[in-house]
């Protein structure tokens, strides 16, 4: 098993499948128990080092570590020495001195987990770095696809919206392609990085017209789009964005019967996704949250437990 999880590219098909299989076993093991806890990581310390507010990701990792009986330390950039200007390196050395077995890091700067991995001995898990990657999100998305549709290999997946600023999109392109899915990126050209067709995984397709794409997909994954992007001239107005790229009831009905709708959250209801779609039975949004805990348990188990 790998030592760190910094990028979805760290996972080949075999390793990724091992993570998904392990997550499924975690689900079963927990379901059978009265006390929803496994003793696997007892005595190990997991630090959640969060330089960005992200309650949902942090509590998901926290729940995952606690269900494996690890000790969890939450280190938030707000109200800590970080806000007093301590460098990432000094923070890393501090965590190192405390004996962290794993550091889960969320950081606004792309690549920060790579640097952290050079400064600590424990495992580093990238929980989202800038506009780079968010590999456990891709794993939980793949897990959700597998549990809903039975497989990832051969699926046609459309990822729609602000790909340029999306770490979720980058990790998903890498992981889903490795697992044999066909990924199509859809959005206004301003939000699709130039050359992304070949930059991450060969076979990635780029399309500008959502309506042309929808009838042929098994999965449509909507990305959060910040309204403020229009101030930087990425699109003229929120209304126009929604009209061209928002997933509403009419577009939902254009999807094949079996197709599912995903969103990494938090949603901008009314912007990229209409309430009708978000709350429809074909939406997996709440399931994704639940699967996030299982997948993160699997990753922590494989990175930490596997090493012992």
């Amino acid at each position, binding site marked *: 098993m790998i030592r760190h999880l910094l990028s979805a590219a760290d996972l080949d098909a075999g390793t990724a499948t091992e993570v998904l299989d392990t997550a499924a076993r975690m689900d079963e093991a927990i379901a059978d128990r009265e006390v929803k806890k496994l003793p696997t990581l007892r005595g190990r310390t997991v630090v959640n080092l969060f330089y960005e507010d992200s309650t949902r990701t942090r509590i998901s990792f926290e729940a995952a570590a606690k269900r494996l009986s690890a000790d969890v330390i939450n280190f938030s950039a707000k109200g800590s020495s970080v806000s007093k200007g301590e*460098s*990432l*390196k000094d923070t890393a050395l501090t965590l190192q001195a405390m004996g962290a077995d794993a550091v889960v890091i969320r*950081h*606004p*700067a*792309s*690549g*920060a987990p*790579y*640097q952290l991995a050079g400064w600590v001995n424990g495992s580093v898990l990238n929980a989202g*770095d*800038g*506009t*780079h*990657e968010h590999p456990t999100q891709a794993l939980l998305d793949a897990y959700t696809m597998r549990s809903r549709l039975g497989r990832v290999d051969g699926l046609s997946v459309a990822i729609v919206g602000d790909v340029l600023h999306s*770490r979720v999109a*980058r990790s998903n392109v890498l992981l889903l392609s490795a697992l044999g899915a066909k990924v199509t990126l859809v959005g206004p050209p301003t939000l699709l*990085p*130039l*050359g*992304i067709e*070949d*930059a*991450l995984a060969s076979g990635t397709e780029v399309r500008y017209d959502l309506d042309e794409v929808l009838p042929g997909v098994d999965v449509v994954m909507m990305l959060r789009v910040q309204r403020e992007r229009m101030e*930087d001239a990425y699109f003229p107005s929120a209304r126009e964005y929604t009209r061209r790229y928002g997933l509403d009831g009419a577009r939902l009905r254009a999807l094949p019967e079996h197709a599912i709708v995903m969103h990494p959250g938090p949603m901008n209801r009314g912007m990229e996704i209409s309430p009708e779609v978000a709350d429809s039975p074909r939406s997996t949004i709440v399931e994704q949250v639940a699967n996030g805990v299982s997948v993160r348990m699997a990753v922590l188990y494989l990175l930490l437990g596997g090493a012992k």
Partner: protein
Amino acid sequence: MTTYLLKGVSLLGRDRTDLLLADGRITDASTAGAEVIDADGLVALPGLVDLHTHLREPGREDAETVESGSRAAALGGYTAVCAMANTEPVADTAGVVEQVWRLGRAAGLVDVQPVGAVTVGLGGEQLAELGAMAGSAARVRIFSDDGHCVADPRVMRRALEYVKAFDGVIAQHAEEPRLTVGAQMHEGSVSVRLGLAGWPAVAEEAIVARDALLAGHVGARLHVCHVSTAGSVEILRWAKRSGVRVTAEVTPHHLLLTDASAESYDPVFKVNPPLRTAEDIAALRAALADGTIDAVATDHAPHAVEDKECEWDYARPGMLGLETALSIVYQNGGLDWDQIAERMSRTPARIAGLADHGRDPVPGAPANLTLVDPQARWRVDPTALASGSRNTPYAGMALPGRVVHTFLRGEPTVFEGKATR
């Protein structure tokens, strides 16, 4: 003053000869009483001239001082460096440029020729007192807001015109700022993968093209700093063919390193303009060989450890260059020694208006020269560099060509690979 006799040097990599250094010049007078230096097989070059050096003083003496930077320069074979204006305070007055010039004289290791800012505080709006700087003891001829682009076309036009009065030249950091908001590295497949905001080639090329047109229109001299893209090379080729008085420089790192270096997220590879692609490198090397690019300039940019040992987004751009430039160019420039002398000494001296530099070491010339062992290889050890900073991108690399001696006005500033002061 000691008289030195350099025995058996290879002048510009060609004929073996002896050079006699007396009274600050190279002479053919009597060798009697001269101190003999065995220089057998060492290549004698005119002392190198750097058009683009950040010495950081005043303001960031923790990263570099005029003295430590001068020492690094001498060890790199330089006898003159042009000190960029983005200090704190900015070198936008006669007072600051004279201070830098005096610090250079006091250090006595290279001639430090201050560059003056084009606009007050590098703000891009109001012209600095260019004439006062030109008329000061520092005799400033190159003006640059380097680190920032003179982006306003009207301000740029005025600056180009204004310095015609004293044969000045505007050295432009070509970067359209509206196209590089938040930019972190070359925009291309690597930036897409790494999730780092892209610095597109067009942001440089748009300014190079605009400035070439402006310089042609007003008949002024333009110098383009650190050209980094194949597209800029094409524009320069066109401009020169069209008779525009434009010169251009390329850095050693843009001749060797690509954007793939960023994959480590190690900010030692963060630089502005950013490292580009292999295709750009090929175009830059060809342009340097055919003279479309006139000079190699280091863009030596020392940074304190805390400004580099951090997240890529937060790190300052820039890398050291003075002590490695000659080796990098020798290894990768595809140039012979005479061409190296042209691109690293004669032409930059001419651009900077430094009459005592850039002259081949033959009798009658000022004794500003450097002697290089072309056979020697050396390993770059950041802790062994003379610079006050450690941010070299070449750490651990074994490079060919080692500076053995450097002479400034007939006195050694570097002797047997060691700085003399």
